[in-house]
């Protein structure tokens, strides 16, 4: 500990802290541009110069470590002269275009120049002009305004992990730029907009749309990944202008992924459904709520009465709120059916009865960065949950051993990866068995004898042995199952082996949630085998895959486009079209929907309704509506409540979403989840027979749900555009005699379509990567299977 004096007042500080940190912690204001608490110190702007005792010149507060007995003055004549001089220099080249600058009104340069700038410039010479570059669909540049603080460059190097911007040239000729003609493609790029202290980098989608002082700031929760990032929604007259992060160190720190930042554009997409619609004699017509709800209730009742209750199925997106999800399953169950599910990406439900209470990360989000050893199985974590990946990256930078077992050699933004095993989906079981076997040596009674016996014949490769050895180092160990594992055709086996590996290596086991409210969907009981709060059902209904693959007579859809959102979109569409009655609670209307639905009910999306999301770490985050939805759009929970009333389901007299929430809360009580004891011992560890090229399917970052798919700017990013076509490595391409961009015939089961070939060396031999959530690929059907390519 050190005691220092700032402006005559004593403060205690840690030795090694920078002066500016002590000042910030104690509310002493020091102006700065380049310093940022989350980034390394560059000390390039010199705005934070302060006077220090026994120092001949003013010192930069951001780069001066405190020493015991140090005396500092931040507002002395000497300090102020230095600060004002720096300000004058910074303003020499800065254009006086605040009236047309998007940053105007919330600009650090503007704010500080009020305090430290002169009222008139002494500079009469020519100012520097820098031509703007197009660096992508998300960030607008106006580089003449740049003051070279290099926060954006450091963000790329230190947080995003990929340096895409650099300071080219030197002195007055320095320009912040990407490398010749390249774009900024990071999934966290939007944070550079927040970091930029001037108007050099601004948000392209909201450019010139509003002035900062016209905006109203309301809080909400982002719905697109399991983190549940806290956000500020900026509105002007009931219109969302932009979304920015709200600081929450336990969840998203001060960052926000681009998906959560720019998805709001999807809320005003052209195909937004704003009035209820019903199909009468084959014709679609807008109608009022009463008619529509009556039609929905009658239709649902008819299915149940005409056939059996379990001919009516409910399918929901895990981006819906906890309240909507809970009421949906209550409505369906109220009619006697247990066919309700949200796990649309899953195919293996064999051990569902033994699954944990909800997909729990295994630890709080912030704990991830304190891991010493982590094994991630089947996850493109960087694109699944960008900020979870950021925590893991921090752990790796602190020396943690991070290992991956993946079907694709993903690029993990310069994370220090100790080992990456690339294995085709089919070989995943063998690989995991090998790792488990390697760990088993010398351990008794850690895993059931039955599993030990199954592992008896397993051969351990050198690669698996190394990985197993690394897993037994470090105090905090974590095994994480990603989305590629959850959607695997042998997920139950993967779970069992992951549990075994975790037990054998004394690690924690965690699951990566697929969507913003996956945990909420489990807790709300949108599952055929469990009611709310995990109460088991003796005779479960059928799961999402079976509902869509075998076909039911009636469906209730909540926020899903099954052709894009489910494991086998082609089959799902076919069966929906065959069904007698489909009611879709949806925010959007598409031509495809019109081919299968009978009633379309316009519901609100995340900023338009009150509700709750439960994040990957089990944190409940409630929010209120921040915008009034257009026209006849109503919150989903209200629609479902009325539907419940019309169907005479008992106890449907909720006045608010809070009542629904507390009902779930009460049912849940003190229940917690235990990932390590929620599994089933398998009977067999054999992989499937290989019969052609294996299809690997990834749900790309900007196709995960209805809203994101309609966020226009995100759809122009490289992550979105590169998800097209059929990806193979050059060996496979050579085998079929095709080269990059050739259109090839892709055959899977009975389906045959043409797709452009993309040479992608990340894909292993014998495999094909085809992305999900792409309209062009839907016809191919299921996410796994055997594919035939012909040039």
């Amino acid at each position, binding site marked *: 500990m050190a005691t220092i004096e700032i402006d005559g007042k004593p403060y205690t500080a840690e030795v090694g802290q920078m002066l500016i940190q002590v000042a910030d912690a104690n509310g002493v204001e020091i102006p700065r541009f380049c310093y940022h608490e989350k980034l390394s110190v560059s000390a390039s702007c010199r705005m934070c110069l302060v006077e220090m005792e026994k120092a001949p010149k003013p010192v930069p507060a951001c780069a001066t470590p405190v020493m015991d007995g140090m005396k500092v003055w931040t507002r002395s004549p000497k300090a102020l002269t230095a600060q004002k001089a720096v300000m004058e220099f910074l303003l020499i080249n800065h254009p006086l275009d605040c009236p047309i600058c998007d940053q105007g009104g919330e600009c650090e340069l503007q704010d500080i120049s009020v305090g430290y700038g002169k009222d008139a410039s002494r500079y009469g010479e020519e100012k520097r002009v820098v031509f703007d570059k197009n660096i992508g669909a998300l960030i607008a540049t106006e580089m003449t305004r740049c003051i070279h603080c290099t926060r954006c460059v450091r963000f790329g190097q230190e947080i995003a992990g990929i340096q895409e911007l650099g*300071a*080219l040239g*030197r002195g007055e000729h320095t320009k912040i730029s990407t490398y010749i003609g390249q774009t900024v493609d990071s999934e966290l790029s939007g944070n550079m907009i927040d970091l930029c202290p001037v108007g050099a980098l601004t948000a392209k989608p909201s450019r010139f749309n509003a002035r900062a002082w016209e905006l109203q700031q309301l809080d909400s929760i982002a719905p697109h990944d399991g983190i549940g990032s806290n956000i500020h929604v900026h509105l002007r007259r009931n219109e969302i202008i932009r979304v920015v992060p709200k600081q929450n160190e336990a969840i998203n720190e001060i960052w926000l992924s681009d998906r959560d930042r720019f998805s709001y554009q999807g809320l005003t997409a052209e195909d937004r459904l704003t009035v209820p619609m019903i199909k009468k004699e084959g014709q679609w017509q807008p109608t009022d709520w009463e008619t529509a709800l009556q039609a929905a209730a009658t239709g649902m009742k008819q299915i149940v009465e005409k056939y059996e209750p379990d001919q009516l199925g409910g399918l929901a997106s895990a981006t819906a709120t906890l309240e909507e999800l809970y009421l949906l399953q209550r409505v369906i169950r109220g009619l006697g059916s247990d066919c309700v599910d949200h796990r649309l990406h899953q195919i293996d439900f064999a051990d569902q009865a033994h699954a944990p209470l909800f997909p729990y990360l295994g630890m709080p989000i912030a704990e991830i960065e304190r891991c010493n050893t982590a094994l991630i199985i089947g996850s493109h974590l960087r694109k699944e949950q960008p900020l979870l990946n950021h925590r893991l990256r921090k752990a790796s930078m602190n020396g943690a051993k991070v290992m991956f077992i993946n079907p694709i050699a993903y690029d993990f933004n310069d994370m220090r990866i100790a080992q990456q095993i690339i294995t085709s989906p089919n070989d995943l079981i063998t690989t995991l068995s090998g790792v488990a076997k390697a760990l088993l040596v010398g351990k008794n009674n850690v895993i059931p004898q039955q599993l030990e016996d199954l592992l008896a014949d397993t051969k351990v490769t050198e690669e698996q042995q190394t990985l197993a050895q690394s897993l037994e180092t470090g105090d905090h160990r974590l095994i994480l199952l990603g989305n590629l594992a959850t959607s695997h055709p042998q997920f139950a086996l993967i779970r069992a082996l992951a549990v075994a590996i975790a037990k054998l290596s004394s690690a924690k086991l965690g699951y990566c949630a697929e969507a913003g409210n996956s945990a909420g969907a489990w807790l709300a009981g949108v599952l055929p085998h469990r009611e709310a709060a995990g109460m088991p059902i003796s005779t479960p209904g059928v799961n999402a895959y079976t509902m869509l693959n075998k076909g039911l007579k009636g469906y209730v859809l909540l926020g899903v486009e099954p052709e894009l959102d489910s494991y086998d979109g082609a089959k799902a569409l076919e069966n929906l079209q065959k069904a007698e009655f489909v009611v879709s609670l949806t925010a959007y209307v598409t031509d495809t929907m019109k081919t299968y639905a009978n009633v379309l009910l316009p519901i609100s999306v995340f900023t338009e309704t009150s509700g709750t999301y439960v994040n990957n770490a089990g944190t409940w985050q409630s929010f209120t509506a921040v915008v009034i939805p257009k026209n006849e759009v109503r919150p989903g929970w209200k629609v479902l409540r009325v539907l419940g009333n019309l169907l005479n389901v008992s106890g449907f007299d909720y006045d608010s979403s809070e009542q629904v929430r507390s009902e779930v809360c009460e049912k849940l009580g003190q229940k917690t989840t235990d990932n390590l004891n929620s599994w089933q011992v398998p009977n067999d560890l054999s992989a499937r027979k290989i019969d052609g090229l294996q299809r690997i399917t990834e749900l790309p970052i900007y196709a995960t749900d209805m809203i994101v798919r309609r966020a226009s700017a995100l759809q122009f990013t490289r992550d979105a555009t590169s998800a097209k076509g059929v990806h193979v490595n050059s060996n496979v391409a050579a085998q079929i005699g095709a080269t990059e961009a050739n259109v090839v015939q892709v055959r899977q089961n009975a389906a045959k379509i043409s797709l452009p070939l993309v040479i992608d*060396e990340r894909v292993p031999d014998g495999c094909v990567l085809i992305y999900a959530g792409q309209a062009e690929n839907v016809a191919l059907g299921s996410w796994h299977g055997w594919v035939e390519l012909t040039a």
Partner: protein
Amino acid sequence: MLAQRKPRPTLLTSESYAEIDRWLAKYPPERKQSAVMAALTIAQDQNGGWLTSELVNEIADYLEMPAVAVQEVATFYSMYEHKPVGQHKICVCTNVSCMLCDSERIVKHLQQKLGIGFGQITPDGKFSLKEVECLGACVNAPMMLIGKTYYENLTPEKIDDILARLN
């Protein structure tokens, strides 16, 4: 195992790579970027005195650096050229000491003699002219640098002689 996505080295010769490797050996294996300045110099020398973006890319791949980080270095130092230069790059100092010793006369003479201005190349590609800041030879100002040789205490006559010898 995973296939590398890197393009095969194509532009730099094996001699250049050997030279870069000699520099790489001086630093810890995880600090490959320490050799970036040397690598850029080697690439520039091989390419007739200037760097292309393809060369920068190749160095970035070889040193496992982001291309933009290599470009930062390449644009920061004035010794790296991004446009073609003459066979002999004449760098004339016009900084304070040289200026006081009438470097203006030297510049004028060179420009007249070669028929080119700063940043230009003679039509035969032999010479190019560049204005530089202090090269640390103030004691014998005015001065110029051609290739790796300093020429000091310059006079127009001396320049004629030097250029004639280089020709």
